């Protein structure tokens, strides 16, 4: 579904992506792990098109999208979410989601007809709100939501665009154990209809969700494989020296 070849990105003297190669298969949850500063978020930004790549290729559904604009990739079904919550703070939950639905359904070069009259838009937005656990919060301003609810809305925005491949950047960032649990269950339910590339620090979440795992270290993929292989991989253990316990904990 997604094939990344030798992707590069430099920021000044630092190679954030230093020849990343990666394959994501249709229908899998593919986790991307790695120590802080490994270049996970940079890679997500490159894949989604928020930042341009210096070299390399990104193939999505057989198409070369390396030079495509972000909105073109979104239309094709390649959609990202953000580690640092990025929602429309001064919109209500429903308006946030309706906007995302609007982005993929029909043209927004419509200047006369009130959006409020488009019932289909809001029905779909309500469905997404219910799916991510925000039923009953539709009329709340996004800014007034609790952190966990904002994270749910963050995911809801991406889902409302009906992605084929979802680039999920740390969905459980900053969440308590209970909230994390709900988020993990939510992502688990998504797998039947969306392929997911999941960046995650919470090893518990990674080993529960992932079909395959890739380990990113210093802007390169160190290893890719099934969770058991990754857990047993000596190189990975070395790279995670400081984090060895988090691997042990779930071993």
């Amino acid at each position, binding site marked *: 579904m997604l094939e990344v070849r030798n992707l590069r990105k430099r920021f000044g003297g630092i190679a954030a992506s230093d020849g990343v190669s990666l394959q994501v298969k249709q229908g899998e949850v593919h986790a991307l792990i790695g120590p802080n500063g490994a270049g996970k978020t940079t890679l997500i930004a490159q894949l989604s098109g*928020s930042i341009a790549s210096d070299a390399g290729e990104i193939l999505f559904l057989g198409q070369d999208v390396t030079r495509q604009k972000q909105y073109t990739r979104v239309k094709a079904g390649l959609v*990202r979410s953000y580690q640092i919550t*990025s929602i429309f703070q*001064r919109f209500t939950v429903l308006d946030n989601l309706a*906007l995302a639905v609007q982005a993929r359904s029909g043209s927004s*070069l*419509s200047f006369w007809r009130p*959006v409020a009259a488009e019932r289909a838009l809001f029905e779909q937005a309500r469905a997404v709100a219910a799916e991510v656990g925000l039923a009953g919060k539709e009329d709340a301003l996004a800014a007034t939501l609790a952190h966990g609810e904002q994270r749910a809305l963050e995911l809801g925005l991406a889902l*409302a665009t009906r992605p084929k491949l979802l680039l999920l950047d740390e969905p459980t960032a900053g969440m308590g154990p209970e909230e994390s649990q709900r988020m993990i269950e939510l992502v688990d339910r998504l797998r039947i209809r969306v392929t997911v590339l999941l960046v995650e620090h919470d090893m518990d979440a990674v080993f529960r969700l992932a079909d395959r795992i890739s380990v990113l270290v210093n802007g390169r993929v160190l290893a890719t494989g099934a969770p058991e292989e990754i857990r047993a991989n000596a190189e990975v253990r070395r790279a995670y020296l400081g984090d060895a316990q988090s691997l042990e904990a779930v071993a």
Partner: protein
Amino acid sequence: MFFVALPIVLKAADQTFYLSFASRVLITALAATSLNLVLGYGGMVSFGHAAFVGTGAYVASIALAEGIPSAWIGWPAAVLASGLAALLIGAISLRTRGVYFIMITLAFAQMVYYLVNSMKAYGGDEGLTLPSRASLGLGPDLGDELTFYYVVLAILSLALFSFHRLIHSRFGRALVAIRENEARAEALGFPTLRYKLVAFALAGAAGGLAGALLASHGKYVNPNILHWTQSGTLLIMVILGGVGRLWGGVIGAAALLLLEHVMAEHRFAWLAALAPNYQQHASLGVGIVLLAVVLYAPQGIAGLFSKKTHA
């Protein structure tokens, strides 16, 4: 309603000068409202809006000077020319952000200003006196102040109604979303640059219509209409009236022009004691009022009347 009844009141009070003044307020309100689309809803601080008002004014004036009196030709031509100018200037300027966007729109506006200044065939820096106002060719004579006032009022009303529809349409929602969080809007699949450019061009076109009306109103146009201080004045009007509010441009234009007029025409003894020739510096009062608005009514005058949060 107030604006419809205004001429009757003025006539009763024998103050027909104010009828012409009221027309100018309404035209300026149209210009400020068009800027509010860009500034208030698009979040783009354009410091060159006078270029589009001026382009419209000059295109309409040149049509008149060349013996084409019909408003049906001159005004649409003005709208088209300003819209195209905005499309061109916007396409380049919108690649920049923040202070750079402010500076580049200002630079483009100054280029247009000097271009018009050097158009010797059309008066150059002396300006261009028009033989008459544009003509509708339908009977009502725009030379008549009352007729002109009502035509301007009708145009402004139509423009405000369109503006109202626009900001609640799909396009309007997308535009506000881009203002609020451009990166996320792009990540949802909106081609943000394109939407901003469309808004910029629409605002330019509406500004051009205001320019065409302004030229007819005074039967005279000169390059000062394009001067960067005019762009600044329009910005002040929007901030004064209410950024991102439907009536912000109208309220701001009315408040500012009235204030300037009062400062210039009436001698306040206490102020004169402080600054004897303050009447030659009407902007002093404007500065004080603007300061007060920014400090005490950051949502503008329109914000004082509405508890609703920013659109």
